[in-house]
């Protein structure tokens, strides 16, 4: 996993909480900074793709590791 500036552990949370928490965290970050989100909700894989597409924040990485889903999102 590449470098990131901030981390958000949304493990155990279900839709739509991982997205809402990520949005909130991103709001407090500067443009160009990278957020690492950890989630256990399998629906979050598609949801973060959709979130990135609609908000313009770039989804740089999305992968499953150790039973959890990891996302790197670059703030637009």
């Amino acid at each position: 996993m590449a470098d990131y500036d901030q981390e958000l552990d949304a493990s155990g949370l279900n839709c739509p909480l991982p997205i809402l928490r990520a949005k909130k965290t991103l709001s407090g970050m500067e443009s160009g900074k990278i957020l690492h989100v950890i989630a256990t909700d399998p629906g979050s894989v598609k949801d973060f793709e959709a979130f990135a597409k609609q908000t313009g924040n770039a989804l740089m990485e999305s992968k499953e590791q150790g039973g959890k889903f990891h996302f790197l999102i670059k703030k637009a």
Partner: protein
Amino acid sequence: MSAEKKLAIIATKGSLDWAYPPFILASTAAALGYETQIFFTFYGLQLLRKNLHLEVTPLGNPGMPMPMAMDKWFPVLLTALPGMQSMMTMMMKKKMKAKGVASIEELRSLCQEAEVKLIACQMTVDLFDLDTSEFIDGVEYGGAATFFEFAGETDICLYI
């Protein structure tokens, strides 16, 4: 980000299960950059109470999964027994918590934080003599024309 989209939702139901769709969709839409309004009318007004007492009922709902596959063998009439509704509600809340599903209170405050506009139908408030001091702060009051003023400009408009 694309030009701001708009979502309007009419929330008409006052049960625990049906409280979810309006708040989930509104909070998510707000996170995606939508300007969002929810218009609460009839039983949907229950979702605006400070102290929510929302319940689920298996009555008249053949699609509701029940513990121990009761929906398959338990006589429908017996689900009308006293205490069944509060028992089902308790079990549903427990399950939701175990699965990491947010509470309605949490989703509702996330909506408010994200500046989702909550509008209560004045006519139904009057009809049912509801005490608006029991509603959360930040609720606006209006009628059908108020709803259309925003709904007419939306990209998505849902009746729940």
